[in-house]
């Protein structure tokens, strides 16, 4: 259970717009295998699924179907209860980790300026909980719980 913030996100939280502002209208992509060492690093593993609001089509640069975090309480923010974060399997595999991308174009390569959060994935446990970690092509999966905390 590890949450990793990118340097771009850390800089935003220290000096510009905060986490919710920096990550507004983002998208969550789920990959197989283990997390990279940092959220600045290039993605590793196979892209299994793209999670958007209600499973709608998403394009970087447009807010349509983007994801947003809830108002924080006690140093914690979550997926808004009323929002449905949903994706459809692109490739079959076991979900290992997820990267929350902010709205500007981000191809997942190495970056120290883009705001991202990497999270480990589980079912019924952890910071990012899916309805099913076994992703099948074309099968829908929802995010039941997503939680970010500031220590």
């Amino acid at each position: 259970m590890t949450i990793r913030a990118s340097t771009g996100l850390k800089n935003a939280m220290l000096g510009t717009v905060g986490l919710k502002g920096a990550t507004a209208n983002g998208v969550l992509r789920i990959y197989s295998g283990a997390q990279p060492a940092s959220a600045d690093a290039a993605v590793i593993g196979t892209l299994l699924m793209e999670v958007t609001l209600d499973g709608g089509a998403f394009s970087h640069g447009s807010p349509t179907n983007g994801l947003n975090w809830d108002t924080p309480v006690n140093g914690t923010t979550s997926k808004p209860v009323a929002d449905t974060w949903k994706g459809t399997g692109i490739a079959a595999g076991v979900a290992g980790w997820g990267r929350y991308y902010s709205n500007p174009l981000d191809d997942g390569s190495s970056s120290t300026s883009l705001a991202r959060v990497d999270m480990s994935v589980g079912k019924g446990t952890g910071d990012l909980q899916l309805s099913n970690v076994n992703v099948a092509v074309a099968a829908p999966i929802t995010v039941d719980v997503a939680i970010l905390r500031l220590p």
Partner: protein
Amino acid sequence: MSIKLSTGLRNGMLDTNDFKTALDGGLLYIYDGTPPADADAANAGNTLLCTVSLNSTGSGINFDTAAAAGVISKAPAETWSGVNAATGTATFFRFSEAGGTPAGASTTEQRIQGTIGVAGADLNLSSVGLTISATQTIDFFNVTMPASA
């Protein structure tokens, strides 16, 4: 050595606020005694040794224009200093938002708390023994966002 963030500051940074906006214009307070458990807790019998402001004027102090590599520092052109109000051994500090009440309990005020020492602390001073009426200057002050939680 770990800087503690108040609940009010953590909520702001997770929302659309940022550390610099929250604390710019605030003041740095130096205390003696055992530090409170966290930045939300009230001080317990700690003596305020020094209030650090802009050139000891009482005006607020500010952070650099932007963070880099996950670190934000004191505005380099500013002189952060204060005249000691009491004699004692500095053990911890609180940096409190403008108009804040740094010694009281709060889950909404935006503040940080850290240790003071001569080496290896969150805020290192040339000497932790402060003498009343002497001027204390803070030359370096950096805050790092952790990469993992």
